[in-house]
């Protein structure tokens, strides 16, 4: 006996399986592609001189002396913000789906696979559900603070997008204090956590908020000092400058050029995991002790914002690590001069320039997604640490380690000649390759250990 309701998406997709696949593909490719292409079209133009030049060439309008000049500039800025905010939201959504699918397989389950092909629309369904829920504000909560807390978190998520380079020219603006700016603004998330914990007037939420604050304050120190390693190696704080000081090939990445940077990379990743409240450092929202921690009292759209921030923060964390240590958007074999010559002096650059821009964006996206996958993988491997373990790890291991990396990098930059750096780069790349192969062989061995188990990617 089957009771069918009017809206039965499973029967719809069963009746038209191709429709589901087409809709999923359209959503999964067109949405990010539109955002990336929009970013590529808008971000490089976003300076007053270029906007003026475009207005003059295309519309014959002298914007520089026009009274509406500022309005046009603000419109451009709003367009840029629109793309960045939507990118964060879409990434946050899609990464929840990826996380659930990966988590499922790692636990011998399947994960959400009903809405759309491979369950891709699960994140859309989640978002719609959450937006439709009632927005409850507890009677004893501090109304104003409770309402405003999610926006603090969201600001902390969105501000780093200003300097995060997606590609050679695809960056909103290249601040000369870029790394400093990211470290400062991304800590804004914790203001939201602390405020929400306080304003909820609930002991679970307060504990979560206090833990979040303690965690971020502690981990800013090793994270900040380890971030200085690539800054010292590049000689600049600008994100684009750091990427340009690296190269496309793995032996030109900072992570391989210096043994201290190799360690610093892991310190930065660990401390950004802790700052982003990802497992194994998700103490502010430890379900088993604190219900849901700082967002225990939240519901509806405000909860959706908190969750979006939590997941979209992975992009900032991974993007920062990729930019600082893994060569950012650098395409192997494409030099700075080649971008410059392809750009030319004409108003519109040549098609070749666009190809290389897209290629550089693709390199950055692939690297960042790979790191995001590692974060997800870590989450489903490690149990949550205790508070004392968290503090021990930070103060006894990461802080001395970060200082050591800092000093070793200083000496390295002074004492080691360029040839020595090249040799180290190649040696460390080979070492990393060796580790990767050994790791895959170990994984293979783990499967072969169980009788009858084999590599099988089926059962979606």
């Amino acid at each position, binding site marked *: *006996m089957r009771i069918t309701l009017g809206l039965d998406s499973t029967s719809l997709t069963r009746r038209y399986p191709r429709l589901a696949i087409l809709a999923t593909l359209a959503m999964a490719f067109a949405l990010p592609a539109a955002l990336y292409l929009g970013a590529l079209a808008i971000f490089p133009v976003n300076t007053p001189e270029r906007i003026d030049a475009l207005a003059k060439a295309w519309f014959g309008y002298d914007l520089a002396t026009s009274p509406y000049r500022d309005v046009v500039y603000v419109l451009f800025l709003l367009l840029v913000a629109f793309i960045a905010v939507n990118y964060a939201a879409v990434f946050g959504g899609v990464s929840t789906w990826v996380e659930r699918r990966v988590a499922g397989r790692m636990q011998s389950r399947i994960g959400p696979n009903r809405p759309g092909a491979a369950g891709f629309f699960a994140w859309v369904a989640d978002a719609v559900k959450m937006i439709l829920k009632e927005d409850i504000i507890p009677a004893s909560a501090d109304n104003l603070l409770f309402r405003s807390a999610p926006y603090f978190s969201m600001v902390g998520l969105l501000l780093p997008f200003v300097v995060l380079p997606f590609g050679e020219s695809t960056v909103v603006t290249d601040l000369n204090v870029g790394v400093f700016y990211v470290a400062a603004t991304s800590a804004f998330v914790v203001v939201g956590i602390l405020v929400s914990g306080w304003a909820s007037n609930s002991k679970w939420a307060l504990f979560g908020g206090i833990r979040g604050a303690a965690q971020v304050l502690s981990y800013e120190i090793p994270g900040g000092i380890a971030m200085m390693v690539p800054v010292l190696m590049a000689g600049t704080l600008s994100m684009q400058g750091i990427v340009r000081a690296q190269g496309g090939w793995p032996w030109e990445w900072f992570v391989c050029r210096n043994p201290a940077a190799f360690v610093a990379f892991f310190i930065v990743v660990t401390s950004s995991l802790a700052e982003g409240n990802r497992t194994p450092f998700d103490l502010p929202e430890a379900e088993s002790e604190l219900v849901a921690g700082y967002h225990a009292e939240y519901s509806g759209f405000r909860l959706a914002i908190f969750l979006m921030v939590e997941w979209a923060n992975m992009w900032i964390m991974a993007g920062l690590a990729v930019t600082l240590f893994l060569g950012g958007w650098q395409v192997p074999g494409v030099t700075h001069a080649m971008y410059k010559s392809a750009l030319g002096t004409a108003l519109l650059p040549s098609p070749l320039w666009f190809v290389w821009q897209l290629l550089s964006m693709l390199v950055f996206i692939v690297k960042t997604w790979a790191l995001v996958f590692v974060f997800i993988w870590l989450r489903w*491997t490690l149990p949550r640490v205790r508070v004392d373990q968290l503090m021990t790890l930070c103060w006894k291991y990461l802080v001395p380690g970060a200082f050591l990396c800092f000093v070793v990098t200083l000496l390295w930059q002074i004492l080691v000649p360029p040839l020595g750096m090249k040799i180290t780069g190649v040696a460390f790349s080979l070492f990393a390759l060796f580790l990767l192969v050994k790791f895959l062989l170990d994984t293979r061995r783990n499967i072969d250990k169980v009788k009858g188990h084999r590599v099988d990617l089926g*059962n979606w």
Partner: protein
Amino acid sequence: MAQAIREYFGHVTDAVKTFWEGLSVTLSYMIRRPITTQYPDRTPMRVADMLPSRYRGLLEVDMAVCTGCMACERACPIEVIKIQTDKEPQNPKQRVITQFDIDMSKCMFCGLCVEQCPTGSIQHTREFEATRKSIDALVFRWVPDPEKPVPFYRPVKGQEAPRAPVGEILKKHLAEASWIARPNIFEGAKKD
């Protein structure tokens, strides 16, 4: 001092080793086949048919081989089964069963009734999907109409009772939703 230093670096190497091992285990599970069975609609066959043959599912009675001995009613520890018999008006020597109700919502699937049955008329099947809108509809009435009673089966010596294949009758009833059409309030077995 040396001990403390050894411990300190021992923790670091332990961390690296255990991370290595743990990550390789989870990755190895990611590229294995998930064991989930996608009940109810993406299985190679009906899940009821995939269960072991001795599964204790919903009870089924083959009225054609029921002797009306009421052994199952007496065996039931929680009075799930209710049987009433009568004499056939035209032929008083022939006894008939006018009511044979099993309240599946109360049944605890202990199997005592099945053990008592002399002809194997009452049996557990592998069916388990019997969700109903009303709990009353879970009373399975094996004599659907008291006006049309079922005569007792007389066992023949040295011959096994011709029991229908287990599950077939119940499946037919479930498919036709026979018990939903006319819901019946189970009166409960007599207390005395």
